[in-house]
Structure formats: C-alpha cells, structure tokens
C-alpha cells in the first residue's frame, strides 16, 4: 500500500509541476537566440615562424520567454488542414501552399474582396487593343521586393519568361527536378510557341506590354490567379530548384520560416508599397493540424485564431457559440452526378431526365451539408457572372421519372445496364474522400440511391481509394459517378469549357464519360475568345441552358466552405477562389 501511495504522490507532483508551468492560452513565447561569432586570427611572427591561432568567441544573447506572454494581438495563428507542397507559386496548384503565397507575393491584378471581379494589384491600370490581343499594363512605382530589389517591368518580363520559356535555365532545372508549371500550361495553352502569350516586353520601367496570339476571354481572370505572382528575379535565380523553401515577393508579409509538418511563419514587411493595405498584424503563423476535430479543439482552447476544414456536423455548434465566428466562403464549387455515355441506356435523354427527376435535392442538401450548401441546377455557382438565374430545374417527381423510363422502354425500371457492350449491374460510384462540393459523399450517395429506388432505378454503391477513383474516372471506367469542380480563376470558361469544349476533331473525351455535344462546344468556344464581359455573359447563360436541357449531368449542390474564427478576429474576407489576404485581419 505504501508503494501505491508513493506512486500516487509522484504522479500528483508531476501533474502539479506540469500545470504549474501552465500559462493562459493563447500564448506566444518568443525566444531569440543571437549568436555573434567572432573569429579573429592572431598572427604572431616569431623569428620567421608563423603561428596561426584562431580564437573563437561565442557571444550568446538569450532573451528567454517572459512570464507574461507577449500581447496576443501581435500574431494571427491559422489552423490549416495539411502541409504546403511548395512555396514557389509558379509550380503549385494546392490551396494550402496558395494561402501562404497570397500573403507573400503579388501579381498584376487580383480578385476584389469576396468576388471574382478583377481589380488592380501591382498594375495601376491597363488598356486593351481593339482586337483584344495587346494588353498594356502600367505598373505602380516604388514597389520593393522583400530582398530589397526594385519591382519593375523587367521583373515582370523575367517572371513570364520563367513560366513560359522551357529554355529559361530555372524553368528547365525545375522540370528536370520533377516539377511542372501546370497552371501556366492550363490557363495559357502551353509553353514556348504553344502558349497563347506570344510576347511580353518592357516598354519602359513602369510599362509592360503582353501580346496574345488570339484574344483570350478569361485573360484578366487568369492573371488574377494566385499562381501568376512575381518573384524577385534575383532571388529566384539564386534559389533555383530550391525555390519551394525561400519565397520572396512584394506582398505585405514576408516569409520567415517553414518547419516541416508544424508551421509556417510570416512577418510584416516594413517596406510594403501600399501603406493603407499594409499588414495589420506583426506575425502570421500557419499551423498544420491535419485532424479536423483536433483543429476545432485547438480553436476552442484558444491556441489558434482561425481555421478551415470543419466537419459539417460541427458547423451548427460553431454557429451557435458566442466564442466563435462562422464565415462562409462564397460558393465556387459544384457537386454533380456524371453519366458515362458508353452506357447504352444513358444515351437516351429520357433516361437521363428520369434520373434527374427522381432526385429530391433539397432534403439531401439540408441533411448533409451542415447548413452551408444550396441545391443547384447548373454548373456555375451563383457568384459567377455567367450564372443563368432563369433555368428551371427538373421538378422532383418519382412518378414522372417512372413514366419516362417506361416511355424509354424500361417499364420495370433499371437495375442492369449495358456498359461498353457488356451487361452489368448498374454501379453508382461515390468518392471515398470528403471534398468541398460533397462533404459526406457516402451519405449523399446513399440518399441519391434511395431516391432513385423510388423511381425503379436500383444502383449498387461502389467506391475505391481516391487515387484509383480519379484514375478510373480519367479513363472513362465509371458508369455513373459523383464528382465536382472547384473553380480556379472565377471565370465561367473555367467551369464550362474545360469539360464541354471539344478538340479540333470533336472527339469525345473519356475524362467526363465520353460526352460530346457540338452545339454546346461551339457556344463556349465563341465566348472564350471575346474580351468584353457583357458580350460573353449571354453566351455562357445560353450554354448553361443547353447543358441543362440535354441533361448532360445532374448538378446537385453548391457549397460554401465554412471557416471558423475566434470571436475577437476581425477583417477576414473570404474569396470564392480561396485567394484570401491576411493583411486586413486583426486579432483584438
């Protein structure tokens, strides 16, 4: 018994010791270790004998953590879902890296606040030639990079060269190291001579002229994307293939440190050019907390000030709690059900319409989106200017769906299909991972299957790991499946043309179930080369109407990704594209 008592007392003492050092959270403890190493070399000449005696004197100045933590409002701590891939904007596509890049770098133009409208950034203003091929940008003067170099037209030219020219030494080295300039290729049609950008030249230090092969409708929206932002050319050259670890731009925050799997630290850039929009916080820390529940607990404990990636079931709890602030990012994402046109039954529009009419979207969205979703009838989210608000969705009507199937020659409903010439049970594939457009794919798939069953459509639910899922979808091996799209550049073209524009030979692509429709493709291709928004918008509305009427896919819902903040955080402006700037954020 004595032993037990001693164990208990040891444990208690340990617990007391640990809690004694507990300080109220959130706390930021700063420790600065300054090492000054002096290495004078004494040369003593003694009768032609030289003795070299190195003396090392280490002066270590340690400022230990103070008992009172520094003012909490110095630092804004954001909880991210994972680890950034790379901090070189030119070679990334992921949003976690993007969030850091948005603070450190700037481009010619950017998205305005919570919209996808394009406004000036490093370019003060711009003009377009009458044929839409030549864009002239006037740059802000007196802009400095974090390494002290000047931002000017020459820097812009060098950055475009890095993105576009495969013979550019840094570009070439990156490719050899296994990197890709994916977004540049996607948005500007490829590299070298393939690119839609034929020339970028510095007219004078404050003027850049970009010449295009042909007019590109989404050109400005493309330039506003988080990846087309400028490096200090000298810093980039120095970094070479290590560019992922040393980002240097002109943004309001500059990069300090990236601790793998832990956090990225940024600090306010004192020489930021745009004083009214300079950083309001001294430091930014972006912590990697991979588990959704742990992240919310960290917010509850006051260790972080804001976070992304909430479980839908947690949204209501955050909303009702005065300790938190819930911010919904305007939808830029649409979840859909895609048909594979290699399934014989799906080539009949009546069958597709029956599938659409059998689904009761509203209750599904209410049940599985945690109050952040909205049912939809088209591909573009309402925030985009090509959205067609006049489209009337197929009304939910199980009886009508049954009748449509009977008319199409399936009076007993559908449970088997002919896929690629073989008869198989109808498999409905759902994604194994939660995505912004489908927060609970399995639950949603089950609900969809239940709706279909009421109309005599019996599906077998199927899934597989995410990588294989994408692989099968790319190769057109899924007969009926769930997927979605998150916009890149806030332009309707980015939602519609990527899927519905056909290549020069009009070949159906396996990527989206071998769907091909020349009528839709022609409208979209026409809109893609116009420059004026007022001319393009009606065409995109027309395309959406066609896509709906032909029941090419069933669009289920848009989702507004939820972000949670501590109640004392102000000034976080959510952008549909996720391009969000922390310079306006204040922790009170």
């Amino acid at each position: 018994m004595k032993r037990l008592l001693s164990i208990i007392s040891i444990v208690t003492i340990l617990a007391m010791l640990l809690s004694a050092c507990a300080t109220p959270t959130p706390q930021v403890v700063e420790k600065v270790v300054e090492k000054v190493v002096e290495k004078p070399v004494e040369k003593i000449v003694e009768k032609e004998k030289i003795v070299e005696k190195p003396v090392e004197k280490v002066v270590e100045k340690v400022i230990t953590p103070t008992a009172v933590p520094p003012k909490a409002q110095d630092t804004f701590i954001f909880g991210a879902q994972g680890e950034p891939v790379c901090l070189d904007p030119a070679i990334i596509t992921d949003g976690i890296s993007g969030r850091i890049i948005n603070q450190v770098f700037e481009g010619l133009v950017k998205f305005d606040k919570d919209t996808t409208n394009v406004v000036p950034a490093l370019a003060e203003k711009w003009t377009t030639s009458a044929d839409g091929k030549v864009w002239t940008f006037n740059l802000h003067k007196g802009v400095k990079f974090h390494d002290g170099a000047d931002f000017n037209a020459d820097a812009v030219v060098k950055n475009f060269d890095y993105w576009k020219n495969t013979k550019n030494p840094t570009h070439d080295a990156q490719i050899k190291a296994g990197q890709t300039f994916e977004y540049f290729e996607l948005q500007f049609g490829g590299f070298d001579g393939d690119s839609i950008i034929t020339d970028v030249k510095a007219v004078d230090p404050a003027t850049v002229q970009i010449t295009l092969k042909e007019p590109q409708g989404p050109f400005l929206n493309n330039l506003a994307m988080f990846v087309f932002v400028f490096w200090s050319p000298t810093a980039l050259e120095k970094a070479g293939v290590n560019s992922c670890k040393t980002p240097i731009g002109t943004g309001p925050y500059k990069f300090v440190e990236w601790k793998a799997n832990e956090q990225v630290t940024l600090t306010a850039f004192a020489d930021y050019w745009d004083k009214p929009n300079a950083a309001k916080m001294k430091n930014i820390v972006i912590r990697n907390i991979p588990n959704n529940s742990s992240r919310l607990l960290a917010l509850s404990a006051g260790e972080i000030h804001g976070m992304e990636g909430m479980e839908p079931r947690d949204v209501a709890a955050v909303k009702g709690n005065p300790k938190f602030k819930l911010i919904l990012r305007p939808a830029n994402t649409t979840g859909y059900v895609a048909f594979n046109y290699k399934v014989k039954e799906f080539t009949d529009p009546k069958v597709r319409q029956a599938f659409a009419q059998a689904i009761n979207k509203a209750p599904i969205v209410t049940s599985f989106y945690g109050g952040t979703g909205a049912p939809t009838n088209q591909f573009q989210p309402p925030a985009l200017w090509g959205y067609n608000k006049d489209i009337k969705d197929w009304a939910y009507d199980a009886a009508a769906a049954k009748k449509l199937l009977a008319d199409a020659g399936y009076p007993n409903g559908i449970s088997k299909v002919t896929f690629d010439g073989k008869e198989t049970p109808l498999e409905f594939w759902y994604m194994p991972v939660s995505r912004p457009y489908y927060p609970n794919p399995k639950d949603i798939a089950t609900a969809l299957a239940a709706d279909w069953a009421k109309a005599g459509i019996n599906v077998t639910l199927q899934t597989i790991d995410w990588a294989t899922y994408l692989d099968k979808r790319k190769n057109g091996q899924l007969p009926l499946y769930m997927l979605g799209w998150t916009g890149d550049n806030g332009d309707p073209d980015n939602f519609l043309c990527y899927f519905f524009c056909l290549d020069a030979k009009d070949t159906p692509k396996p990527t989206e179930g071998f769907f091909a429709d020349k009528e839709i493709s022609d409208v979209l291709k026409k809109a893609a080369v116009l420059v004026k928004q007022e001319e393009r918008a009606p065409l995109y509305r027309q395309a959406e109407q066609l896509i709906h009427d032909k029941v090419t896919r069933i669009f289920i819902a848009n989702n507004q990704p939820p972000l949670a903040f501590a109640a004392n955080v102000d000034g976080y402006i959510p952008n549909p594209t996720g391009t969000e700037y922390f310079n306006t954020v204040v922790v009170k």
Partner: protein
Amino acid sequence: MLSYIVKRVLGVIPVLLCVSILVFGFLRLIPGDPALIMLGERATQENINRVREQLGLNKPLYEQYLTFLGNALRGDLGRSVLRQEPVTQEVLRRFPATIELALAAMLVALVIGIPAGVISAVRRGSVFDAGSMLIALTGVSMPIFWLGLMLIYFFSVTLHVLPTGGRLTAGTQFTPITNLLVLDTLLRGDIPLFFQTLRHLALPALALGTIPMAIIARMTRSSMLEVLSQDYIRTAHAKGLKESLVVTRHALRNAWLPIITVVGLQVGRLLSGAILTETVFSWPGIGRWLVDAIYARDYPIVQGVTLFIALIFVGVNVSVDILYALVDPRIRFE
C-alpha cells in the same frame, strides 16, 4: 555469448530483405499512379508520361527494385515524389520526434504498468486489484483516436492546463540540436522551454502509452502470480523475510522474463500507434508523414519509412533477445 549475438544480428538481414521486397511489391499492387496524384485532377497525358519517366516508373519493376535496393544499401532512400526532399535525411530529421513520443509513452507505460501489476498480484482479489485490472481492460480496448480527442477536450479545452497539440507553442523560435526537444531545451539551458516541451508531450504520451501500460500491467500481474505461488516464495516467507523483500528480490526478479518480452513487443505497437497519435496531436513525426505519403502514393517515402521502421523493430527485438540471454543464462547456453 558473442556467437549468440552475432547469430542474432545476422538473422536480421533476410528479414529486412523480405520487408523491402514486400513493401516494394505491395505498393505497386495498390492501384493509383503517383504521377496522376502529383499532377491532380487537371493532369494532361503528356505531363503524366514525363513525370513517370522522371520518377523511373516507366522502367521494368525488377530494375526499379534493384535500383532502390542498391541505393538503400548506400543509405540513399531516394527523393520524395511530391516535395523532392531526400528521404534519408527527412527520415532522420523527423524520427527524433517519434522517438521522443514513443519513449515518453513507454515511460508512462512502465512507471504505471509495472507497479500496478505487482501490487495487483500481491494484493490479489483486493479492491486495488479489481480496480486496476478493470482500468487495464478499458485501456486495452480504447481506440487511441478517441482517447486522444477526449484527453484534448478534458485537459486543453475544459481545464486549459495542457496544449492541444504540436511540440512547441505556435510562434516559438527554437533551433533544435538533436531534434529531441526535451533534450535540446536542456542542452540549451532553457528551463521554461523544457517545461513547455514536457507539457506538449504529456497528452500524446498518455494517449499512446495507455494500451502498452494496460498490457504490461496485466502481464506483470499474471507473471507475478505464477511466481508467487512457487515453493521458494513460501520458503522465503517461512524464513521470516520482509514482504517487500520477498516481492522485489525473490518474486519480481523471476517474473521479469515474460515482462521483458511483452515490453519489447510493445515497441511495434508504439510505432504503429504513433501514426494515429501523431495525427490527433499534430505531432511532426514519421508516422504522420507515412500516412500522408501513402495517400499521395509517394513511393520513396513509404518504402523508406517502412524499411526504417522495420529496422528499428527488428533491432529492438534482437536487443530483447540479447537482454533475455543476459537475464536467463539457460538461453545463451542452448
């Protein structure tokens, strides 16, 4: 004794070779192309081909394996697909975090598990025995994930005494030496930071240590019970020896063998448990790194980390065998 050790150590080679073949083979059996994952939903065929070529994925499998093995023997585990980091260096950089967590968890397990088992055996049938064995049973059955979240909720959110995760408070600037932060903070003489690392270590160590603790307590109890029923214990009692002396000197010493075996086996459990614990507590060790790599089909990381973990596991087992031989002379003379 020396020949025994040499035999044991040489036995490690075929094991590691098998592990390398299995890992390499299984990874390639799982569908999912690393090039496609790397490039994402928007990949073009040209890009996929180019990346596959760069990663050497277009070569025949046996050639890929031999390259991997040859490089691994020279200590080069390749470069990560996604981030292009050298895997060997990254494993060594991240491993101290896992080791620190595993050691702390083992400490929790031993310090509580062994005394609890001994007392339970000595006071067999008492309230303490029933209580501690009930706790041990609960401990074994508790999923680490759930336990971790509950610990965070109780100690961090409700009581505000311990942090929710990470190794240091966000924003702390500290340059590690060995990357074992408990040690590093002491080496730098930074006592407040030392306590900070302990506070960060407390919850994950408790979560990870619970299952081994329960297993060790139960094994200690049953092993002690067996020994306590032996004649020589009765003799010791009859000689009039003090109870504490009988327990520690006569009983526990003879009960060690199965306990050491179980403790050795827990190392594997700690390493696998670390994967979950590191995810819940945002702990930057190799467990979490491995999980991320599996999802990304980052072959070099998965191969490297698995091989490394196998090496550690086999190494610990060999050490346990040697320790066994030291404790029980019968074994080394067999």
